[in-house]
């Protein structure tokens, strides 16, 4: 009998300990977990267009654009670097893509290449002109910047992002195509045409246990 009682009390105490342990664990669990990672690390979570796509496409395409003969030809003919402005990147895809971040990535790559002179785009120019107008009224004369001295662009880089979707139960293939072109602002000649493709397959499980 005492042996049986000891076993019973051991059993009861084990259950209590397990329950206590579980409640402690539940108390420690956090709903939100934050981990800092290198911005260069690829983070494909949903399969949608993300920062990695934007950065990689901008980097590859700008490098490609600047490696083509139109640039050398221009420098030889004019004796200076061409002035480039980034125009509109049209979103023709199935996703709500923030094209502004892609435009910024393109601008950064163009600027940092040091092979072209890069000027501010349409929206930014408006802000800068407004600042000049204000300077003309409020700033000291020797510090005022005069109008009519802007550098006109020789080329405009513009393009679009489009997608083709193929989907069946639980599996989706997304094909992104980014088309960029460098257009001569004087002659409308398309001096360079680049294309970058990305293909992703997103799979979802139908049942989880």
């Amino acid at each position, binding site marked *: 009998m005492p042996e049986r009682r000891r076993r019973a009390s051991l059993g009861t105490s084990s259950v209590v300990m397990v329950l206590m342990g579980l409640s402690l664990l539940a108390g420690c669990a956090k709903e939100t977990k934050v981990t800092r990672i290198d911005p260069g690390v690829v983070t494909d979570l949903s399969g949608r267009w993300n920062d990695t796509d934007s950065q990689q496409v901008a980097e590859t395409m700008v490098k490609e654009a600047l490696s083509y003969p139109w640039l050398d030809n221009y420098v030889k003919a004019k004796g200076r670097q061409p002035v480039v402005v980034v125009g509109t990147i049209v979103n023709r895809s*199935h996703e709500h893509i923030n094209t502004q971040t892609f435009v910024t990535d393109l601008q950064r790559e163009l600027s940092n290449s040091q092979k072209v002179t890069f000027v501010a785009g349409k929206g930014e120019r408006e802000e800068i002109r407004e600042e000049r107008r204000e300077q003309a009224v409020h700033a000291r004369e020797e510090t005022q910047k005069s109008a009519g001295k802007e550098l006109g662009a020789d080329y405009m880089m513009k393009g679009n992002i489009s997608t083709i979707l193929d989907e069946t139960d*639980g599996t989706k293939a997304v094909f992104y195509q980014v088309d960029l072109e460098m257009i001569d602002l004087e002659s409308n000649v398309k001096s360079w045409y680049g294309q970058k493709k990305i293909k992703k397959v997103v799979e979802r499980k139908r049942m989880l246990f």
Partner: protein
Amino acid sequence: MAPALCFMKRRSVRQGTLAVLLLLATSGCATSVNRYALIDQSLMAGDPSRAATIIEKAKDEYGSESRVLYEMDRGLVLHLAGDYQASNDVLEQAKDEVEKLYTRHLTTETKAFLTHDAKQPYEGAPYERTMINVIKALNYAAMQNWTEALVEARQIDDRLNVLADRTSQKYGYRDDAFARYLSGILFEIAGELNDAFIAYRKAYEEYRHVGSWSHVSVPASLKEDLLRVTDALHLTDEHEAYKKEFPNVVWRPAGETKTLGQIVVISYNGRSPHKDDMFIDAPVSLDALNLVILSKTMGNGQYSNPNRRAVDSVLYGLNGHVVRVAIPTVVAQKTQVAYGQVKAVGSSGTYTATTQLVQNFTTLAERTLSDQLPGIAVKAVARAVVKYGMAEGVGRGAHAAAGKDTGPLVGIIVGSLAKAWAVASEEADKRSWRTLPDEIQIARLWVPAGDYQIQMQSTSRQGGIAGRESSRTISIRGGEARVMTERVVP
């Protein structure tokens, strides 16, 4: 009848206790009825912002299983309130949730199987999922953000293509004529004529394909659109074919319309259908058959009343030989609106257009349910059998556990409670996107550039005035488009 009455007297004391417990089990549906009554009142009073507040306050009542429904209900009233960005944010969340719900969890499925289908996460009927994109597209269109509106139009195309691949019923909901038509309008406004033509053509084919059950005929404006776009794209064969099909349709060429401003009015008429329970009580003994007949005679078949349902559950639980199966039914709330008259009054003149029916949610809900019914019924019967078996087992287990003296009494009480719970917990999944209207009608008109007062007045099916007249002022340039929405409740 006599044995059943006698049976009721013997157990009258226990009925009270059981009734209280089961009233609690069946009272959940009453809150959603009250909530939607308040939302309808706010919409009828022309105050969608108040409806949005009511929904936000009821977030907990919706519960985690109905998160998508909460977002759909809220997204639509925010759209009606003109808070387009907030509506888009909420509906985007709903879209993401629906995508996640593709993966089912065994524990959730088991829980729903053992109680009722409303315990499953709500992912919306296929037509409701399409409407998430449609409302988002209209939000972007109202903000004149055509690029993003077209993203939704492309998603609609993808969604409907996948739906057509998945759906086996040849004449069921496997495409959406209205969603296609709206996509066509948006593509045309954005200057994507080829995409517009594809969408218009698909809309035309779908309207004809499902006309027999959707009760929506091909809108006259769609015929004009097909003629205009095929002409603009120089698709001579198609244009000639449409000309033969619509010999009496008067249309304006694209060269003429592109110099004018375009006004598109979307009118949401009436209230969406809702769902109710239809209970099938199957007696498994003669005594139980008498009880079911008695219950129906006494008026306990009024299933929307939770008190009546609780009484049923008590009686059937005590009898112990009645199996209940719950099936949803669609309850139509047909709109009184026949059509709306849109008038654009400007300095260059007055231009009018009449709205035309483009979407009928009542027939869509009925068709969707009829397509799903075989699956729902099989599951409901299987669940009822399992619940009955479990209740029997619980009663016998309690009998054995209580020992010789009190065993029979405990067994009867526990068994009765378990069977009453099995009956009371049986409920059909009555959830649906109830802030949607009964019908959508559309009017398109082209006007010269200028300032206009846009007035709209609806006419009832009896020929009188329906709802209140709305009026707003707009300024439009040549080649521009304005998409505006109206909610007419009666």
